[in-house]
């Protein structure tokens, strides 16, 4: 696992920092410096709320190498309330309790560790809200 690569992406991964297009207002995640709607440069940071809903989901029974210790786990496509869609694991929810349209919120969790002595990679996952907040 690449230390520089994970380090470079940490703000996106820990906090859902993306971009907003100054021209058309589109919110962009992950940041790509170019607006996918109007194709002008877009570099203004925008922090997403983390709220979204489940567009689709699947439980993984045959994980890739780095994720073996966590299997089985559920992954999902989550439509963020600001527009973009992300791919992420779901957490703090039983596989049988997930449904399309379910509202979820972002939490920062361990994604994987590089063995017992390597760097721990943290990033975004989504879970049902703990409690409705005023």
């Amino acid at each position: 696992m690449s230390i520089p690569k994970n380090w470079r992406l940490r703000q996106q991964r820990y906090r859902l920092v993306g971009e907003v297009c100054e021209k058309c207002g589109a919110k962009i995640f992950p940041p790509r410096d170019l607006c996918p709607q109007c194709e002008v440069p877009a570099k203004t940071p925008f922090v997403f709320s983390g709220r979204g809903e489940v567009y689709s989901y699947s439980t993984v029974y045959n994980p890739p190498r780095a994720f073996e210790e966590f299997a089985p786990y559920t992954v999902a496509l989550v439509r963020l309330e600001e527009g973009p869609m992300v791919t992420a694991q779901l957490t703090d929810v039983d596989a049988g309790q997930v449904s399309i349209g379910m509202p979820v919120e972002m939490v920062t969790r361990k994604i994987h560790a590089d063995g017992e002595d390597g760097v721990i990679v943290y990033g975004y996952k989504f879970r049902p809200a703990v409690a409705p907040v005023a």
Partner: protein
Amino acid sequence: MRDVAIIGIGQTQIREHWDTGLRQLALQAVQVAMADANVTQADALYVGNMLSGTLADQEHLGALVADSAGLRGVEAFKVEAACASGAAALRMGTMAVASGMANVVVVVGVEKMTDALASDITTATALATDGDYEAAQGLPLVAVHALLMRRYMHEYGYSHQDFAPFAVNAHRNGKNNPHAMFRFPVTAEQFAKAQMVCDPINLLDSSAACDGAAAVVLASADAARVLSPAPIRIAGSAVGTDTLAVHDRRDPLVLDAAVLSARRAYGQAGVGPQDVDLFELHDACGIMAALSLEAAGFADKGQGLRLALEGEIGIEGCVPVATMGGLKARGHPVGATGIYQAVEVVQQLRGLAGANQVPDARIGMAQSIGGSGATVITHILQRMDS
């Protein structure tokens, strides 16, 4: 620009080739194809492969395969487009001949997956997804397909069992293909009970790791009429791309790259879906087959699965698919698959498909999909006497 034709085909059986390494597999396929084409030399060699660096400790396949196959010195390089690598190599070969820059071209697709352990193979095929935003979250490639399948079921009201016909059809045809990896039938009941891989995709709805190589020899159509008793014209050869990650797609349930690729190929060939006699589509799993049928214009959005349910995908149906077993039963040695598809269309158009023969096949379509649909490459082949 001149017309291009296929004048020779060759393929190895698809299985776990414990006794055969990558370069030998490629050599076998190339030898058979060149013999079939009745040529002993070529101007160029393009090698379609996705995972040699990761699973076989080898890049630089162009030079390696050229030398191994008795073509030392010719123009040669590896072509990669994830699971569509074989088709991408065929595209390169087509362009080389069409442009006049080469007269006889060998295209070989080869993949050697089974020297590696299962979880390394799972990790490797995830290279076809978005590394930073899909694979990095713990998704194997099958999980991305599974996300599409579940959404498709949700939007159009299908059940899991509705996907069984693709597996049943593929295995029925694979039984009659001596080169196929799996030559046993599969029933709908077995499909219902198969173990989940990434749900709702199960073991009978996904492709197993395997090894294989397939090759074609290309020449200009004019030369082909002289060189070959049954030349097959490449009437359409086109590529479309899309966002790498499913979450960036305009509509995750429409393979825009396949729509583009098919439309461009139809345009070149001057045909439409109604003219296509068989469709070797990329049936890595039932959902990709359903979406491919829709993108290529054989069914409306959300109705691709209905074609399978109504029995239209069999040899006698209106759009036969996986006629020699498809990715499901013939097998999916990832980077080689695109060439296997082309070889099978040629067999059909030459009338050599045996028990799986589509009656009076004149126009066949082969389509390869990279990853979850980010690269789609379509070839339309046509009998030259039609």
